[in-house]
């Protein structure tokens, strides 16, 4: 039986976890800040090799951006469904989010593979080192987000939408939006900047 104090206890715990997750996201953001700063310092050090303008494709980066932004939108809709307790809608919307994330990841990996295939590896010069590390770290976050999403959805199916699961979906969507924001900065600073 759930009493009034019991609910209060749960709510306080939810509130704490949410707050703590925000603090965690800020620490993660600071790690990205270091990578951005390093990229800003090193991006010109191509040592005679091709620069970002020669290597990057704006249409590809723009497609990636639109895909990730859309996935953030579907993730938001999924969260609204979760708060209303509609399990089927949750599965559909998060399923779409997952698929979009996967497509994004595929495009990014294809870009990396092409660069490496042409000999632009991360050990070639400081510019490529910092590019691969910055964008790759974001990609790694996307991978962990997708893994997290897949497992959460499995548990949503097996356990139903209990308050624990809604809380977990809430944290997950925070994380996903956070990755989206980081990507906007990557898009602006890494890709867009070299074409203006």
């Amino acid at each position, binding site marked *: 039986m759930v009493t009034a*104090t019991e609910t209060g*206890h749960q709510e*306080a715990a939810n*509130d*704490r*976890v949410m*707050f*703590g997750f925000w*603090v*965690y996201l*800020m*620490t*993660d953001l*600071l*790690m990205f800040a*270091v*990578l951005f*700063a*390093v990229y800003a*310092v*090193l991006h010109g*050090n*191509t*040592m005679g090799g091709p620069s970002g303008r020669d290597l990057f494709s704006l249409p590809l980066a723009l497609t990636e951006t639109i895909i990730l932004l859309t996935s953030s939108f579907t993730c938001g809709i999924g969260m609204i469904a979760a708060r209303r307790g509609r399990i089927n809608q949750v599965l559909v919307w998060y399923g779409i989010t997952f698929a979009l994330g996967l497509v994004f990841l595929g495009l990014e990996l294809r870009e990396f593979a092409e660069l490496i295939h042409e000999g632009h590896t*991360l*050990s*070639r*010069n*400081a*510019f490529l*080192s*910092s590019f*691969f*590390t910055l964008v790759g770290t974001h990609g790694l976050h996307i991978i962990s987000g997708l*893994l997290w999403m897949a*497992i959460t959805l499995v*548990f949503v199916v097996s356990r139903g939408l*209990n308050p*624990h699961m809604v809380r*977990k979906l809430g944290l997950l969507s925070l994380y996903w939006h956070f990755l989206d924001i980081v990507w906007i900065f990557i898009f602006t600073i890494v890709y867009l900047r070299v074409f203006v």
Partner: protein
Amino acid sequence: MKELLIGNLGLKALPHEWFTIGAAVTFIAMGLFVVLAITHLKRWKWLWSEWLTSVDPKKIGIMYFIVAGFMLLRGGLDAIMIWLQQALSSGSSHGYLSADHFQQIFTAHGNIMVFFVAMGFVFGLINYIVPLQIGARDLASPFLNTLGFWLYVAGVLMVNMFFLLGSEYAATGWLGVAPLSGREFSPGVGVDYMIWSLQISGIGTTLGAINFIMTILRMRAPGMSLRKMPLFTWGSLCSMIMAVTVFPLLTATLFLLFFDRYLGTHFFTTTAGGDPMMYTNLIWMWGHPEVYILMLPSFGVFSEVVSTFSRKRIASYTSNVVGMIGVSALALSVWLHHFFTMGAGANVNAFFGLMTMIIAIPTTVLVFTWIATMYKGRIRFSTPMLWFLGFVGLFSVGGMTGVLLAVPPADFQLHNSLFLVAHFHTMVIGGVLFGIFAGISYWFPKIAGFKLNERIGRYAFWCWLIGFLMAFTPLYVLGIMGATRRLDHYDSSTGWQPFFIMALVGGIIIMIGVALQFVQIIASVIQKRRLVDTTGDPWNGRSLEWSVASPAPFYNFAVVPQVSSRDAYWEMKQQGIPKPSYEDIHMPNNTASGIYISAFAFLAGFGFVWDIVWLIIVSILGIIVCVITRTFNEETEYTLTADEVEKIERDRIIVTPAAHRGNDSDTSEDMGLTEFVKVVTKWALDVVKNKRWRTW
């Protein structure tokens, strides 16, 4: 095939020099002794379920103290080895250490003292005391806390692992500056051990800090606004906020260094466009705030100690808090003063020099609030107060030499000299460590249930103070005479040797002080009946931790207190404590997930050090599986009913605080050193004569 199985490991990696063989044998012998003793006493199950898997911050705090205490001995041994080499190695004598070995020792000394001694003690104190001070029963996330602790332990193991396999630690200085720490100049495993040791424990620190911020900001007792929070909690909050701000920088920087070494990237290399000075910038952006992360909890300890032992409330609570916040904020904008000589230009140097000088203002405000608290107080000179007084003197000297170093033209002379070494040791020993010792002797009754032996505690204090002055005053002089740091040999015509010998003698006196601290604890255990604290409030304290029994019950507070003023417990004592009405308490279950995750983290780090690919993959998968199982486990709490709480509370001997008003500074009955030796000899003779070990 061999590469696949064990990477770069091989027979070469086994210990083959006198110091690694000696240390390896000692470690294995100590380990065997502990394992046999626990097996013989049949304590494995108890150890596992009561301690290792515990999520109780009080037990985790004690485990932090134990590990940090051992690391203090380990780092102290390094210090003595450094001093001995420098005292011997003048002119035609080259001492007993090779240059390379000497470099490894001072690197390990720095890493261990900062990461595993100071951080360990600080986290131990915060774990034990902060929940009690804010009227919380537990931390916001008990699991993150045990995970943080075990990651710290994994770091401790990693930093000592080179004794067993590899025979080589980093020889780069404690920050591993690039490009020296790159693959090109440090091809061995030493730097890898350092990177993974700091990386693993650093991630633990970030998680721990997030947890304490959540706890302090979200779990205070009703009525305790931020402006009523005890000052140690304030110091801890400032420290933890700084930790979440800068530890991610350390993590990112170490990853970049690791990529340079492992994947061949060019972040900090001298070739292909890398920028070594960027490493220095990034690492000091973490490194400078780090010393304040260590310092602020000590500031908090001193605020508590000085007001309790002056029997006054702190003079100007607001200035004290503003001082701590000011120090934390400014600490983030001074890092460049560590390398004025880099040549960033006069304007940059001037900015960072000024910021560094400005930080002296909030620090001075803090010192003045403490001194003003003593003014017209009825001061008791118990050991915590002695540590405080020692601190004020040393800290003022250290602060003034710091301001001297902050002036760029002066720094060009003193940069990398022993003057600098003397300065930061004055701050870290006189400031951080004295604060930790003050805190431990102040809260020891709360932790153990009995007070520490005052008499031997005083001996230890005086050894530390006199030893410190003897060891580091010569270093100030040597620095001005031109001696650089990290010297393993110098010419006899410099005339430095007498100073180095004096420093060695000082170091030995400090070691006697450390030994006396261990004697102090043993002597207190022997006399614990007499020193027992039945009131829970042995010092006539002011904040909430003194309102519960000593040692604190596992749920901390049977009834969550209502707070209406700054010195919450002081107020309760004045007004009388209301009759409690008990309620059900939710307590977290023990968990071993933290241990498993840290074990996998250790193995992953080990795999990276030796390039063992399968081990890395298995360990990372292991971490992922453990994290998933833990986060999707919904049964993490149990309920303690009101009746059970009442029974535990009734069984505890309650003496009203008012009944206990003895003169605390009377130490006539505390056992002295001669009596201690007598008691221990008698006990040992008794054991041998009656063959008592058979019945153990």
